[in-house]
């Protein structure tokens, strides 16, 4: 491989994690998280680099990274809005919230605003059914949402 994209810190972090797992392949999920933290999303070259580091075929990295919605295989905006639309949230008005964000940001679900500030996605169950509807904004949970609360949150973002 040519020049490495991932930092020294990434590799140092991985070396620390190795003893924690029974197999080297098990490093894949934390490696993807760590890499995404560095690069914001997971471009193909990063997947290749992780595959080479762990010793698995890059296709296998792609397989795993595409399975989990928390790994971004396309670039996302500064604020990644993920609204749960599974059954509990749906019954409590999640679909309307999605539409509200679509209108407000003038994008479709799955798209990023032109200024690269917001990306909107539907999310599968966030495990917050007791406090539905819920959404994730980057790594934080926002629960018991309604139209007003959602507006306030979005407007508070720089």
């Amino acid at each position, binding site marked *: 491989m040519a020049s490495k994209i991932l930092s020294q810190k990434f590799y140092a972090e991985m070396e620390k994690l190795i003893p924690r797992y029974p197999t080297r392949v098990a490093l894949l999920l934390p490696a993807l998280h760590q890499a995404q933290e560095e690069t914001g999303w997971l471009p193909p070259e990063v997947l290749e680099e992780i595959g080479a580091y762990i010793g698995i075929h*890059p*296709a296998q990295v792609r397989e795993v990274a*595409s399975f989990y919605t928390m790994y971004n295989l396309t670039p996302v905006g500064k604020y990644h809005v993920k609204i749960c639309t599974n059954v509990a949230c749906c019954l409590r008005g999640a679909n309307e919230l999605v539409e509200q964000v679509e209108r407000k940001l003038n994008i479709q679900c799955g798209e990023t605003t032109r200024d690269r500030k917001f990306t909107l996605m539907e999310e599968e169950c966030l495990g917050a059914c007791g406090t539905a509807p819920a959404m994730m904004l980057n790594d934080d949970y926002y629960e018991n949402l309604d139209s007003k609360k959602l507006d306030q949150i979005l407007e508070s973002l720089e």
Partner: protein
Amino acid sequence: MPKCTIDGREAEFTPGQNLIEVAKKVGIEIPYFCYHPGLSVVAQCRMCAVQVEKMGKLQTACSTPATEGMVVHTRSEIAKQNQRSIMEFLLINHPLDCPICDKSGECDLQDNSYKFGDSNSRYTEERRTYLDLDMGPVIKKNMNRCIHCTRCIRFGEEVANIHEMVAVRRGNNTEITTIDGRPLETDYAGNYSDICPTGSLTLKDFRFKRRAWYLKKTNTVCEGCSRGCNMEIHQDANRVHRCLPRVNMDVNQYWLCDEGRFNFHYLHSAERVVEPAIKGKNDDLSMTDWDSALDAAKAALVGARKLTVLVGSDLTNEEILLLQSFIPQHLSGAEIVHFGTAGVATVADDAAADKLLKRRSKTANLHGIEQLGLKPFRGISDGTDAVLVVRGGRAELPELPSVKLVGVGVFEKSEARNFSVVLPGTAFAEKDGTIVNFQGKEQKLRRAVIPAGKSKALSEILMMWMNRKSS
């Protein structure tokens, strides 16, 4: 042996055997898609679920080992209902394009649908469709036909030792693919098509060539290397259309490499010399009749001061024995040696060429030819003024001196350029015979097609030689 009962029939089994295999032994078919005896068991297609007495739910036969006294029903109302439901489910997104699908006629999905499915579906929603990415020169993918059995993924991981075929995304949007449509890297890609229970992965080489039911099948052995994988030749109208692996657990298990699978193409190549040929005035080969060619061959060889006979290790034992009795009588004094693969002179040089099937010797009968006492070719000896080369189509020609050269067997026009005479012979699919693989197993080559053009069997050529009075 312990016994269980399947559909009222008593079945003996060896401990650990699963219900699909036990049922097969007593002639009961349990339908399945994801199960393959050569791959790990995942029980994800659910097609093989059967009713087992004293067990609450249906059990997947592929992942349920038979136990003593087990009573199984594969065609009870509840089992049949499951089979119908699974078929309906697997077909909701299927394009039902059997009339234009190459798998048609030998498709598990089609067969099981007829046997175990229902003729109607309740699904009225839009079908999920894919745009297909490429997969390289061997395999044509049609993702819309896929039922996500993952046999191909497991084959790559467990057998071919390369995890290049993967399932990206998940649920309804799962797609079987290589990264961004990269070509498959494995040398065993043809097997992806064999194990696919649908028309999702088909051979580009065989695409739209013949409907499966027109093909006549001959059990034979691959001549691609010294392993001698068991395979079937499928031909129609005297033309070979494809070769498929045949199960032999001692030799090749269920698999066949691409080199062996597509080796047959030279049989029908326009470059193959299929008529007797003599070197003309302008140093190019011109086609002639058998009598003239035989006379020319005799003129070149009989009376040579020093003749070397190069025998390809792609010939059968029978052909080698014929030559061993013919040459001392009719071309006495000739030195007989064998050739086949550059760098693999003797059995001692033959070794595994990869982790799966391939061997270093690229001819099938190196071990047989040594058992028959022939020595390897180590370079032309001084004073040689004529060389006779006898080979099938596979042995690699060594560098030959510019003396009188006579070829008997299968040659390409470019290879035969320096020859004085070529007598066209038969290739592996055009003759019966015995070959010995690297394990010392004697295996049978069987004739699948009649020899191309005016080619003749070696026995016939030698007979003509003996009966022809020189003019």
